[in-house]
């Protein structure tokens, strides 16, 4: 392994602060440079590792850029048909209720072909975690327009920008599932800065805890970039995401458990 190092005297095992988790395999990620998928994978692997769930986790792979996810994280996986991951996760969780079951899906998978599965799994309150990567485009197949593509955003099938009169408005999937009674924790995060990575990791840890307590569906949307299909450099695409995606898909919790709300109000009352 070729590597470059900083000050060599500091590099000792006792000074180690951060190292890629062992759950990530040595396989080189198949993503384009700067893609948010890699960061999302690593956070997920870190959470599973830190919670000691490696042998207790079953993940459902989507169809899309992250279709080869089973090669990158060293846990049990099952590949689902396009968009059908929540249905498969429902079956697995009902048969093996003691396992930690999650799906990892993109916007083409979850919000287009799998809309019905997603909404009904969330409505039934299946005790699973759904991780939704939203980059507003079909990444793998060449940048076609997705349901989440922003108004006026160019893609290979909307070369003059998305015209909402003809093509409809972007689908805010996370807002829809937040209104359903079956969901317990719904949040929207991103992974483009260190602070956002920490917040996303915290959200995932909460979701793992809620699943242990059989609370209901947890839904985490990660607003991500697609440098190749947005035709920008990774740094430019992160900036574009902040300026254009975040106003339409604002970050933050959309639905938090009722217990937390009462806790927060009682805390603020104390402060008053």
């Amino acid at each position, binding site marked *: 392994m070729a590597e470059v*190092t900083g000050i060599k005297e*500091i590099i000792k095992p006792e*000074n180690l*602060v951060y190292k890629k988790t062992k759950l990530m395999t040595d396989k080189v990620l198949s993503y384009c440079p*700067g893609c948010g998928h*890699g960061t999302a994978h690593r956070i997920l692997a870190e959470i599973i590792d830190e919670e000691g769930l490696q042998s207790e986790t079953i993940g459902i792979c989507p169809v899309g850029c992250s279709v080869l996810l089973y090669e990158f994280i060293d846990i049990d996986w099952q590949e689902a048909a396009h968009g059908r991951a929540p249905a498969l996760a429902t079956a697995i969780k009902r048969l093996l209720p003691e396992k930690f079951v999650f799906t990892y899906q993109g916007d083409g998978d979850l919000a287009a072909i799998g809309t019905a599965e997603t909404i009904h799994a969330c409505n039934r309150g299946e005790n699973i975690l759904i991780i939704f990567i939203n980059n507003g485009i079909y990444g793998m197949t060449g940048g076609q327009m997705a349901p989440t593509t922003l108004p006026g955003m160019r893609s290979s099938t909307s070369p003059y920008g998305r015209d909402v009169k003809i093509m409809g408005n972007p689908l805010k999937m996370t807002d829809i599932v937040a209104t359903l009674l079956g969901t317990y924790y719904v949040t929207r995060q991103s992974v483009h800065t260190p602070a956002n990575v*920490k917040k996303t990791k915290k959200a995932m840890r909460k979701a793992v805890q809620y699943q242990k307590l059989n609370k209901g569906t947890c839904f985490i949307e990660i607003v991500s970039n697609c440098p190749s299909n947005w035709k920008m*450099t990774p*740094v430019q695409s992160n900036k574009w995401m902040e300026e254009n995606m975040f106003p339409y898909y604002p970050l933050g919790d959309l639905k938090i458990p009722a217990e937390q709300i009462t806790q927060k109000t009682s805390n603020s009352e104390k402060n008053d």
Partner: protein
Amino acid sequence: MAKIRGSIVVNIDRCKGCEVCMVSCPTGTIAMAKEVNHKGYFYAFPANPDLCIGCASCAMVCPDGVITVYKTKI
């Protein structure tokens, strides 16, 4: 007061040169190399190693997890 010093190790073979680490580094430690790795990417490297504080911001945002971070007090 004790000074905190950090050091990073970059796995050149796996770096895809996306520059996200360079932008997220608060001290300007990281720069992109003038040479390319075997895949043809301009890899990241600690150009100013003395400035590193071991905050691990670069490692946290690196999509490919190529950065390992060490930190100590001097």
